[in-house]
Structure formats: C-alpha cells, structure tokens
C-alpha cells in the first residue's frame, strides 16, 4: 500500500475541509486519479488515496481504522462491475462495504460516511466527480464525531 497526498493546491471554500480516505484499486480508480492529475482536472483536496492491488483487498478493519484515526469519510473505488481484473474482487469489496455499513449502523454511527464507487481507468472525469460527490456528502454530514478524540 502506498499513500499519496493529492493536489494540495486547491483551497477549500468552506471552513470544514472533510478528510477523506479513498481505497483505490490499482487497475481503475488509482489510474484514473493519475489521469485526472495529468489532465489537470480539479477535484477537492484532502482526499488521501491509498492504492490497493484490487478493491477486493480492502478489509473491514481498514475502513473502521480510518474512521477511528479521524477520517470524516472513507470510500472504496473499484472497477466497473464485470470488469474486475481478478474476476470478482469488486463484488467482494461491495459486500464488505455493505457489511461495514451495517456494523456502523449497529453502533449508531452514520453509515453514509462509508461508500463504494465503481469506475474505469479511463474515467478521469468521473473520478473527479466522485471526489466532489463524496466531499459534498461528507460536508453535509459535518465533521466526524470521532475527530475531536
């Protein structure tokens, strides 16, 4: 795994800058992020991208740990359904994200802070859009209740 800070040049308009951790599949979302960079597409800062060999590699503990460590939102981005490099990794990721949401609901935590997205490596524009979407959603939810801790 390798984390990289994404484009700090953009400054948030709002007071609240959601911290988002994005677990990205090497074959799609991560490549799309790169492409978005080369194309100079703008998307919100403060998104930490973590590269996974496949979205199926994500573990529920990764998602929970990211939240515990202060992330306001956590997302998993995998290939389009049917296009997984490892056949069905993205379906597994989908089930894990769904289960993580259930686990969070059990303890009364907003499960909307966790989400799964699908895109291909060519979809740089969609990548930027997803980041906007997620940032907007988290901004509405406000800072994570775990942040102050």
């Amino acid at each position, binding site marked *: 795994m390798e984390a990289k800070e994404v484009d700090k040049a953009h400054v948030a308009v709002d007071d609240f800058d959601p911290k988002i951790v994005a677990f990205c599949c090497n074959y799609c979302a991560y490549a799309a992020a790169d492409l978005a960079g080369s194309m100079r597409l703008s998307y919100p800062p403060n998104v930490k991208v973590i590269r996974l060999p496949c979205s199926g590699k994500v573990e529920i503990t990764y998602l929970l740990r990211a939240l*515990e460590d202060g992330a306001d939102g956590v997302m998993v981005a995998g290939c389009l359904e049917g296009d997984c490099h490892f056949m069905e990794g993205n379906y597994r990721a989908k089930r894990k994200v769904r289960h993580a949401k259930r686990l969070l609901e059990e*303890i009364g935590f907003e499960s909307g802070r966790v989400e799964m997205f699908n895109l291909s490596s060519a979809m740089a524009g969609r990548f930027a859009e997803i980041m906007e979407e997620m940032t907007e959603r988290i901004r509405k939810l406000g800072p994570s209740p775990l942040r102050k801790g």
Partner: protein
Amino acid sequence: MDEILEMLARYERILLLGCGTCVTVCLAGGEREVGILAGQLRIHARQEGKSAQVDEHTIERQCEKEWVEEIKDRVEGVDVVMSMACGVGVQLVAEMYPEKPVFPALNTTFMGYPAQHGIWFENCRGCGNCVLHLSGGVCPITRCAKSLLNGPCGGSQNGECEIDKEIECAWQVIYDRLKKTGRLEWMNNYQPPRDWSTAGSGGPRRSVKIEEVLD
C-alpha cells in the same frame, strides 16, 4: 451487538480475546473479527464521549490452559475480558481468571463444516453414540429435524425437510447412500430407543483417557 454493548457498559478497559483455532477458520472469532469488533467498540465509545481502552489479542487456542496462561499480564491490566472463542474457550478463561469478569462475544451455535465459503451446516451434536458407520455417513440425530432413527417422517418430499426447503431430508440422503452401497438392511430393520445418557441427558459429561493422565 446491543447485547455486547450492554455487557460492557460498566467497563472501561477491555481485552478482546480472539482464538486462533476453530473460530478463526469459521470466521467468527479470529484475529480479523477481533479487529472488527474492537473497531466497533472504540468508535461507539468515542461517539458517546467515553474513554475506552480496547486491547486486541488473539491466542492460538483458548481451550488449552498453556495458551491461556500466557496472557496473565494482559488480563491483569483490564477490567473485563471479552472472549471471542466458543463457549469452551470462554469457560476456560473464566476458570483460569476467576477474579475477572469474562464475557462471551459469540453465541456458539454448532459443530459443522463449511458447505461453501460463508455457509456452514451443522452435522455433529457430539451425542457420544455414533451411528455414522451404519447411516451412510449422515448423522440422523443432527441432520433430521426430529432426530428419528427409523427412517423419514411423512414430511419428507423431493429430498427436502418439511421444516425448511433449504435443508436436505437427512433420511433421503441416508436412503440414497445406503441403497447405492447395498446397505439398506440397517434402515429396513427396527432400531430401538437410544441411550441419551451419553448425549448430555446423563448430566455434564467427562471423558478420561487413563493412559494420558499424568500423576
């Protein structure tokens, strides 16, 4: 989860203790599940504005004293131990650390094998009086909803059990297997009532292998 939160409500320092054997392979109480539950507990506590220390630790086997002994220091440092082992592990930990509350994180359900990844079937009740050599390798005590010994009841249809279409009629399977191997005789003969004293009706069970007992 509500049950677990209620059990732990009064405690601040928690040791979440996983077991590396059976509950690990059945994805219920190994290192991974310890990590998930610990995350849930910490997030919940912090949301409520409480301080909670949740230690995570998984030992090889909670059903053997040697392994349980090794965690003495960890146990001493907490208010409560939440065991993610089966009921056997929970009880051994409780027995070895009687001054510490030890709670079960799991509802231990049954002994079975995975039919496919993520789906398990019960197939042994540990009744102490095995008939698998006669019944084509299918346990009628466990896998027949009525634990019948003399063939299928009138609710067996299309190989399905009357209580649930997802459950095979054990006696249909037994019949097919015995027929295939020319051993239907057992099923055609009257089988007398069983001695259930070995199945738990004789009180708590104890097993002694005298040659293994150390003085």
